[in-house]
């Protein structure tokens, strides 16, 4: 386990010393701060729009961070050949994969905590309340969803040759699932066979990332999700993440590296 933590620590250090995260955070913070400072038509309801936009930016930024950081991990290490001195040590390929996954996922977690804390400050400044339990539920589900995305990107980085194609394909897949994932089986009803069967099958196979999108919970200050449902959602994310990591390991374990 110590080896996995050592590898993830290097991933975190790399993220900390790169500029990507800072740029995304500054852009998100600037847009939110500017919007937060404006009062449109003195309408109190405008706060909801502000919160919705801010959360949308956080979701977009977190997807960029998760996919961008993970996609370059193994291909960049192969290209710069830093993977080879590491693999010459008593460390297995599964430990390298888990270390990379953990590092990227933890980095996403740190980014989310900073983003949500900033969002909380902006929202509290306008609404004078701080529903911590809502934030906690939303952040945890968001982080669990990013676990699936990180594992998906890691698998893509082992199957696809170019980093850019992996980033593009994974990003499109994640956004497509978020936008149309929940309607796939309904779309299938209006189709003929075999397309209907394929689309229905796809509906049951894909990880439903949209289930983790509980932004409305915060935007409209809705009551908390029942904790049992929340735990089941986290378990669902853990199962998909484990499955994707298993597939990544199968792709990586016999890969010729030179």
């Amino acid at each position, binding site marked *: 386990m110590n080896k996995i*933590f050592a590898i993830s620590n290097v991933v975190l250090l790399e993220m900390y010393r790169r500029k990507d995260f800072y740029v995304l955070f500054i852009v998100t913070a600037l847009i939110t701060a500017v919007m937060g400072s404006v009062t449109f038509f003195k309408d109190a309801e405008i706060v909801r729009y502000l919160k919705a936009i801010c959360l949308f930016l956080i979701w977009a930024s977190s997807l960029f961070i998760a996919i961008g950081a993970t996609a370059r991990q193994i291909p960049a290490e192969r290209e710069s*050949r*830093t993977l080879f001195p590491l693999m010459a040590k008593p460390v297995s390929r599964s430990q390298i994969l888990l270390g990379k996954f953990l590092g990227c996922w933890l980095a996403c977690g740190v980014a989310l905590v900073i983003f949500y804390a900033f969002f909380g400050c902006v929202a509290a400044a306008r609404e004078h309340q701080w529903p911590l339990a809502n934030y906690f539920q939303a952040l945890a589900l968001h982080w669990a969803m990013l676990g699936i995305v990180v594992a998906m990107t890691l698998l893509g980085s082992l199957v696809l040759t170019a980093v850019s194609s992996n980033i593009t394909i994974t990003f499109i897949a994640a956004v497509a699932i978020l936008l149309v994932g929940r309607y796939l089986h309904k779309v299938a009803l209006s189709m003929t066979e075999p397309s209907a069967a394929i689309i229905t099958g796809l509906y049951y196979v894909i990880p439903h990332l949209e289930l983790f999108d509980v932004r409305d919970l915060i935007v409209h200050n809705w009551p908390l999700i029942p904790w049992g449902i929340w735990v089941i959602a986290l378990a669902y994310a853990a199962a998909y993440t484990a499955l994707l990591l298993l597939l990544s390991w199968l792709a990586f374990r016999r890969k*010729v*590296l030179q």
Partner: protein
Amino acid sequence: MAKPPVEMSVILKTEQLRVEFTSREFRQTTKVALSSLDLEVSAGEIFGFLGPNGAGKTTTINVLLGFVTPKSGAAYLFGIDVRQPIARQRIGYLPEMTYYYKFLTAEELLRFYARIFGLARAEANKRIDRLLKLVDLEPARRRPLKTYSKGMQQRVGLAQALINDPDLLILDEPTSGLDPLGRMKVREIIQRVKNEGKTVFFSSHELGEVETVCDRVVIINAGELKAEGRVADLVQKYQTSSLEQVFLKVVGYETSSARTPAAARTPNA
């Protein structure tokens, strides 16, 4: 308990190693990189591994380090199959070029590898201090590696290869691109490692250097073992005056003077 596949004094062994690379193009072609390669390296010796470019030296090292899986045959380090990560617990590896995380400092890099080897923090600190002094990088220990010169990066490479106090050091062209001072430093360290009774597997093009430091050499060409023995024995066997000439003879290269008939070399003949 299963019998180990090699004797305890032989710490590196390959048996009938065969590696093939298949192209991913439409018309798949297969290139044989190694063919029935048998190697044995005993404890305490400095073993020179020679061959022209494309002979299969790096592929052999890649198999030993688990980067490449052979088509057939087997390789063992300390009697353990190289496919098991634990086989690499007692080795140090210095690649030809400096392939290290540029955003880390030398100290952070060594600490990272120490953690991979499972060293306790106090022991790791002691070794990091000692190694950074050994490679003359103590004053630059907290500088990012991206600010290091090539020579300094190669010395960091040596330090990381020694962090676990290895019994076998695998060096792939360790002096490539270094200035004479850097080469001297690397040579000193190799000698020091030998004096401590450790084994060195030394792959190099620098035949003069190999002649100076190695106890025994192997020359491979086109993935096959062509010659093996002590340098003096090989020189005698091939009736030459240096390892370089042995090398050229073994790989089938004839110098222009050897190719040209004597009459043609004589002026006004």
